[in-house]
């Protein structure tokens, strides 16, 4: 099968957009945190917690949309912990983030095992179904690719729009970006850097958790320990790739998902000249290459990783 044929195939694009959805949520979430000046390495664990929280909510009888909200709340709570440690206490953002990842992943696995001590196969839930919007879904190519998805994909695109609008068109967004570039200036405007950063990290973490919840609520129908499988780390690379801009985050997420989709198709073909592990490596190698290429002109938020203390410069 040639590359051109693949690109013309609707199924390939449907799969790409589906796989891009959790990456888009995660990348947007990380982008919001970093724009406010806080690196959030808790993302891998926060996604795992969202994954488990969302599944748990439905498994215990809740609704699917309730599960999305619950996952967001879990994410925001973990974000609050990260913010308390890094923003208010000024602790190392690297180490705190890793600690959050470890804690959230361990708590998710622990809760899952305590909930189902004896299950050998993870119980299934009924996930979000693909939408069928009369009229829109029947548009050739665009219909199934965009509107034949689960509602969470549209939610991700809406989140992208809202994030971009807030960041660039509202005073709150300006204050948030200033907190990441020049916190002193924010303080001189009579605003609190600590408050802005806390809210940003909580909101960003909520988005990450919803990205994790997408995995159990829309992509798969059960929870597996370790199912986030590095997606969070890829999102961190994607933020650099996107040069901290929401629009480019969409581009990056789609590019990576397309790569993943190609990799899966190639894997299924028999008579492989290259071992399938090489294809599985590609997203990670690609992330590193993207980091190297982009870092040359990377415009890191100037105050990223720098704790802010009132009255100090």
């Amino acid at each position, binding site marked *: 099968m040639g590359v051109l044929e693949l690109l013309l195939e609707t199924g390939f694009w449907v799969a790409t957009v589906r796989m891009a959805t959790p990456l888009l949520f995660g990348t947007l979430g990380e982008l919001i945190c970093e724009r406010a000046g806080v690196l959030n390495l808790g993302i891998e664990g926060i996604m795992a917690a969202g994954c488990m929280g969302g599944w748990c909510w439905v498994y215990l009888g809740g609704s699917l949309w309730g599960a999305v909200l619950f996952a967001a709340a879990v994410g925001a709570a973990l974000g609050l*912990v990260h913010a308390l440690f890094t923003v208010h206490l000024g602790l190392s953002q690297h180490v705190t983030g890793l600690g959050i990842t470890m804690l959230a992943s361990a708590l998710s696995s622990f809760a899952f095992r305590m909930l189902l001590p004896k299950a050998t196969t993870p119980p299934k839930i009924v996930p979000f179904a693909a939408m069928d919007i009369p009229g829109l879904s029947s548009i050739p190519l665009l219909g199934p690719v965009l509107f034949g998805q689960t509602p969470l994909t549209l939610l991700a695109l809406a989140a992208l729009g809202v994030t971009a609008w807030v960041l660039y068109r509202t005073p709150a967004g300006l204050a948030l970006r200033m907190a990441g570039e020049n916190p002193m200036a924010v303080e001189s405007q009579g605003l609190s850097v600590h408050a802005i950063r806390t809210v940003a990290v909580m909101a960003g973490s909520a988005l990450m958790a919803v990205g994790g919840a997408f995995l159990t609520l829309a992509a798969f129908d059960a929870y597996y320990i370790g199912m986030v499988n590095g997606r969070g*780390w890829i999102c961190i690379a994607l933020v*650099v790739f996107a040069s901290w801009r929401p629009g480019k985050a969409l581009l990056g997420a789609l590019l990576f998902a397309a790569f993943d989709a190609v990799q899966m198709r190639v894997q299924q073909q028999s008579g492989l000249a290259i071992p399938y592990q090489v294809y599985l490596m590609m997203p990670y190698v690609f*992330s590193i290459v993207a*980091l190297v290429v982009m*870092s040359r002109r990377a415009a890191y938020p100037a105050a990223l990783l720098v704790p802010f203390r009132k009255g100090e410069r």
Partner: protein
Amino acid sequence: MRIEPREQPSLALTVLAPVLAVGVALALCSLLIWLSGTSPARALGLLLKGSLGSTFALTETLTRATPLIFTGLAAAVAFRAKLWNIGAEGQLYAGAAMATWLGTGMLDLPAWLMVPTLFLAGALAGGLLLLGPTLLKTRLAVDEVVTTLLLNFVVLLAVNWLVFGPWKDPMAMGWPQAAPVVDAAVLAPMVAKTRLHWGFVVALACAVGAWAVIRFSTWGLEIRAVGHSERASRFAGIPVGRAVLRTALLSGGLAGMAGVSELAGLKGYLTLDLSPGFGYSGIVVAMLAALHPLGVVAAALFVAVISIGADSMSRSLEISNYIADVATALSLLAVLVSMLAPRWRIRWR
């Protein structure tokens, strides 16, 4: 009452703070155990009995502490120089793969030469693996946290390919594992009929060595200076780039030795479950030890007690052994906060 900064950190608090923090973490875990309907006292008793209560339990704990000392040291020396090496997991597998390549028939050496050769080669593999991200950091300012992390996945997939493909042992009944290392490469058990092997002593020696290097050598001074302030070090004429690269070789090398020790001392052959995340636990160990190489030994023992004890406890009680991961993660966060304590004092007025 008010809280104000101290000029000189209090020594008593510096020592007491981490102990207190671990106490808080264990209290939080007890709460979790209590919430899941078991008596925390009984669970803790079983945990201690399972990790320290018998000769067998004790040797199991020391066996578990061995790779944690190596990876803890790897994180500690790197973090000292503000080199955020999160890739110890990949470096561990790189060391193990190197030892497999050389140790399964490639080299024919007597044991007294074979074992040191494998350790050196494994260290070299781990060190070189970290050299790449470090060069990207010093030359192109690419953040090493993400690159070292992503490399873990790449290395694990490479090992996956090796044990499913070219290195697959035809005698392993279809299991994805490489051929066992030759007898000369096996680390002998230290205590008969237990799994405790001489890798533990190598790990202790490395801890003392790393402490001596950091404390007494010029190189150690450079590591500490760069970690303290890169700008000031540059100003003082320290070759910052070279110091960081050497630190990378040392850090990656220690992580690579963890892989050799696990392979030659415990498993005997390369598999994908050689490490249940020792690279990541090493970061916790290093932080618990406040990045002090000798403290790493104590911290590794603590983490080993928790994980071996939790395994044993979860077999007798209906509590998932993931409680060990929860406890170590909580300890990490609590210790982070506690490290602030010595620098502040409470004034009563």
